């Protein structure tokens, strides 16, 4: 079993910020991520509200710089590595990866963030990339002058809809409530566009595909009646879910929504185990806040070691 001072699970902004601090403090630091470094930032087209960049910076560039900075100070990264076993207690902490290597540390920071929520309905996975999309920036041009659905009514759904409107002939928004949850200024831009109509109080139950046409079977949440509507494509933007499934067999306390509960110093109910970033139970989720969380967790560890 290889020993480190700190193991950080998750290589997004929170995990990398923590790694920069612990590695600069000469603590041996291992960062593990099941994917590549950068978390959700790397899938963000442009970041315009991160201090220090007068002009918007590409998300992948910001993420890449965070990774380089952590590695510059000798943080060790194990990427595309799946955790197959995990033990977190006050006395002992270790992680086993899919290559059967085992790592232990006195301190662990959980920074696994969150991921786009899936609808988990029939047809969603089957037609991903073949009629079902999660990114307007990437796939809007495939739907030039076509009719599409947008599923969701929050900020991301409306912001992505504004981009889609530059390409498509029409958008039918399917939303589970009677009003949009997005900020009014953005929502108004979408709802006043003549190319947009909204199916209120409906939720998709299944997607079907025939040739190049997509059908949504949607249920009216007030009457429970189901209807089928056909368009050319479906874009899904229905929020985020915490990446905490790997913690379910540990004693770490989670909220009913799966977020990790911490004290203001980012420590969980297990001594020496911290959580930082979007995985943590809190009101606001931003890159800057994730970086702050990671910094606090790292400083707490540096002072304790």
């Amino acid at each position: 079993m290889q020993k480190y001072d700190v193991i950080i699970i998750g290589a997004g902004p929170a995990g990398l910020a923590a790694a920069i601090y612990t590695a600069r403090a000469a603590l041996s630091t291992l960062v593990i991520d099941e994917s590549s470094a950068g978390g959700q930032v790397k899938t963000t087209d442009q970041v315009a509200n991160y201090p220090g960049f007068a002009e918007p910076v590409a998300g992948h560039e910001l993420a890449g710089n965070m990774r380089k900075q952590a590695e510059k100070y000798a943080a060790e990264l194990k990427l595309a590595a799946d955790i197959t076993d995990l033990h977190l207690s006050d006395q002992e902490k270790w992680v086993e990866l899919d290559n059967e290597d085992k790592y232990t540390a006195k301190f662990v920071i959980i920074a696994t963030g969150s991921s786009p929520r899936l609808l988990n309905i029939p047809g969603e996975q089957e037609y991903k990339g073949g009629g079902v999309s999660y990114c307007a920036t990437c796939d809007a041009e495939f739907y030039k002058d076509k009719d599409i659905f947008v599923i969701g009514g929050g900020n991301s759904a409306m912001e992505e809809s504004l981009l889609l409107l530059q390409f498509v002939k029409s958008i039918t928004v399917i939303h589970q409530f009677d009003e949009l949850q997005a900020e009014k200024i953005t929502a108004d831009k979408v709802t006043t566009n003549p190319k947009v109509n909204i199916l209120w109080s409906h939720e998709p139950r299944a997607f079907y595909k025939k040739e190049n046409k997509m059908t949504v079977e949607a249920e009216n949440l007030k009457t429970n009646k189901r209807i089928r509507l056909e368009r050319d494509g479906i874009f899904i933007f229905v929020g985020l879910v915490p990446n905490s499934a790997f913690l379910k067999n540990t004693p770490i306390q989670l909220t009913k929504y799966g977020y990790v509960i911490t004290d203001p110093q980012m420590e969980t109910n297990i001594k020496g185990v911290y959580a930082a970033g979007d995985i943590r139970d809190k009101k606001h989720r931003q890159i800057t806040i994730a970086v702050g969380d990671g910094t606090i967790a790292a400083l707490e560890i540096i002072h304790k070691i």
Partner: protein
Amino acid sequence: MLQTNLEHIESEEQLKELIENNEKAAVCCGRMGPMCIPVYDIFEILQEKYPDTQFRDMDFDIPAAAVIKGLPQCRGFFGLPFTIYYRNGKLVKATSSIQTAKQVKSVIDEVFA
């Protein structure tokens, strides 16, 4: 031009050479977009884990990408990137849109085992 650390495929000849001269090859054809960049990153990481597999990327907007776009297996693809796996000169798998590291590893373990 894609800004990645992968070797780029820039012509039909390069693609043909890659497929003909390597038992296992994977090509990720996309742009510098949010759904594509994670797959390039995963390819970069997996190069070390799968040394017998050749990983390349290809700009979706260069003329040579017409070969990928025109593949029968990519008909009905409406999500970038298009990721193509070749074994012994034959296309054995094609995926559309973003893939997680776990999904890419699963495809490699399935088609290149």
